[in-house]
């Protein structure tokens, strides 16, 4: 693959293969993440899409390749909320453990 001149998002003009035109209806999880981002803008916790995009680009090339679109948004929101002191990484990790435990409960 061609080197990324200014980040993994900067792909305009690169060589790529055929376009996968399969339609994909958003899942409820994806709609929730979408709603979360917009509600964080509305609440003034996040500034705008430029801020979200910077955080998404800062995830690095690996995340950009390995994660789905809304997974990247999620990771970027988590980083921004930790930076801003709204939800710390520790608090988030603890809640993730709790959710896994709940899901595993009979």
């Amino acid at each position: 693959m061609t080197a990324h001149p200014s980040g993994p998002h900067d792909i305009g003009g690169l060589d790529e293969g055929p376009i996968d035109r399969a339609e994909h209806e958003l899942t409820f999880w994806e709609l929730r993440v979408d709603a979360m981002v917009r509600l964080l803008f509305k609440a003034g916790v996040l500034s705008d899409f430029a801020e979200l995009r910077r955080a998404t680009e800062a995830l690095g090339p690996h995340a950009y390749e390995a994660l789905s679109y809304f997974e990247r948004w999620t990771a970027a929101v988590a980083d921004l909320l930790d930076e801003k002191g709204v939800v710390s990484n520790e608090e988030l990790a603890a809640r993730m453990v709790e959710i896994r435990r709940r899901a595993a409960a009979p």
Partner: protein
Amino acid sequence: MADHHHPHPSRADDPEPTTHHQVMGLALRELLIEKGIYTADDERARIEMLEAASPANGARIVARAWTDPAFKARLLTDPNPAIEALGLDPFNAIHVVENTETVHNVIVCTLCSCYPRQLLGPQPAWYKARAYRARVVREPRQVLAEFGTHVPDDVVVRVHDSTAELRYMVLPRRPAGTEGWDEAALAALVTRDSLIGVTVPTMP
């Protein structure tokens, strides 16, 4: 699509969110609601708005522009009044770009996925994916041909790269043979892909 519009938070055909990042998303959501940053009702209302966004909105604008030259002239200069007349929020900045006998327009967001979702509904997956974003600025005619759109050599292809600050919608050409059609019949010819510019409206 039949049961697409139920507003309650469950869809039988969605898999349970299980990846690391999916669980992260659920955890963030719970914590933000507990902290009072937004409520579950806010979330529900926002999801309903997202689901209500549809290319039918863009299609109505196009049909109106095809039948009302004064409306079209205003639309090409400042689309926001036409958008607000549909009961939608105005954009910070949006351009409507007109296809003509000599120019074919197509939109992309090479850096991410910017798109006038209020007018076109959710982005198709390919609009957000690498192949389209990378290639349409480099070999637009080839990409259009993959969508079944063969633009004659003497027609200029213009590719518009969107940003969060400036979005685009294509005003396609009215198909020949639709003289005398009413706006509703015309709007039915206008697809999402024709508003992106990867296809053109055709007679049924």
